[in-house]
């Protein structure tokens, strides 16, 4: 009875982090509106090792919906881009970790893969919905940006997961959960 509540509140905590980071990213002045740093993906990356898939995906939905509510863009294409990019990236990251394991891949690789997937899907959606074939012209710089941001976010996540007491504590709590 005690553990499921803890898991739910961890989920909510990570969800809150997503919202917080979304807000920060929203407020950072960017030269071009489609430049995304992906700060709000950090909690999602951290969650990969903490939750079973169903809860993980729930967090992804919270991130997408929460971000959309904050920026007020639930209906528009913008939401569609965010949805497509985040889902593709989250699924990809989760799969990579589960298939290759913690020894084979760290958050660095996961971060890069996630960022590239997210950007690729968004370019695809832009191609289909607003830019047409000309979307290809913006693809290379966006991919480069994804590579760089993914690398940096991945490095940060890796450091954080190694040094954070909260993170270690949460992993232990959830592992006790699993072993029941």
């Amino acid at each position, binding site marked *: 009875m005690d553990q499921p509540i803890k898991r739910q509140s961890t989920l909510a905590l990570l969800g809150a982090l997503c919202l917080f980071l979304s807000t920060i990213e929203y407020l950072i002045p960017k030269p071009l509106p489609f430049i995304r740093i992906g700060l709000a993906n950090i909690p999602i990356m951290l969650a990969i090792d903490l939750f079973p898939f169903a809860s993980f995906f729930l967090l992804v939905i919270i991130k997408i919906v929460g971000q959309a509510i904050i920026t007020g863009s639930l209906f528009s294409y913008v939401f569609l881009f965010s949805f497509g990019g985040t889902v593709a990236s989250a699924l990809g990251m989760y799969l990579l970790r589960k298939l290759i394991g913690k020894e084979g*891949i*760290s958050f660095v*690789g996961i971060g890069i893969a996630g960022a590239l997937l997210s950007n690729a899907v968004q370019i695809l959606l832009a191609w289909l919905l607003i830019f047409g074939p000309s979307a290809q012209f913006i693809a290379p710089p966006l*991919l480069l940006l994804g590579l760089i941001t993914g690398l940096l976010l991945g490095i940060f996540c890796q450091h954080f997961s190694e040094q954070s007491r909260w993170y270690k504590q949460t992993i232990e709590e959830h592992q006790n959960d699993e072993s029941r």
Partner: protein
Amino acid sequence: MTAIAAMMKVATAAAAIKQLFTRFRPADLVILALSIIITISSFFIVYAKNNSELQVVIEGMGQSYIYPLSADETLRVRGPLGDTLVVIHHGAVHVEDSPCKNKLCIAMGEISQQGQWVACLPNQVFVRIIGKPVKDGLDGSTY
């Protein structure tokens, strides 16, 4: 003083980066390498000049039209004698109908290669295929 401080900073930075790379796990390096390859090749693929699609330029009486050769369009081009019908279909373009007397333009048939052209001289309609970018004036014509 500052020179030594700077060197120390560079040394610690280099050490940090080195430590970083040794902490990479195998799949990280694979993904990093793959991503760099994909990113760089995307630059080549998208921005190389030989990646341009062929275009059809149709000119008649002060108006000009541009379409990709892959388009599916039927155009009425106005000329002094009337309307010339130009059809772009299945990667090729031809004159379907024209109000000229000898219908030479129709007889010229279909074109689909860069540099080719057909024209209805009586009706002042010119149809040619170019590669990007659009230049004024005729490219080398082949007939």
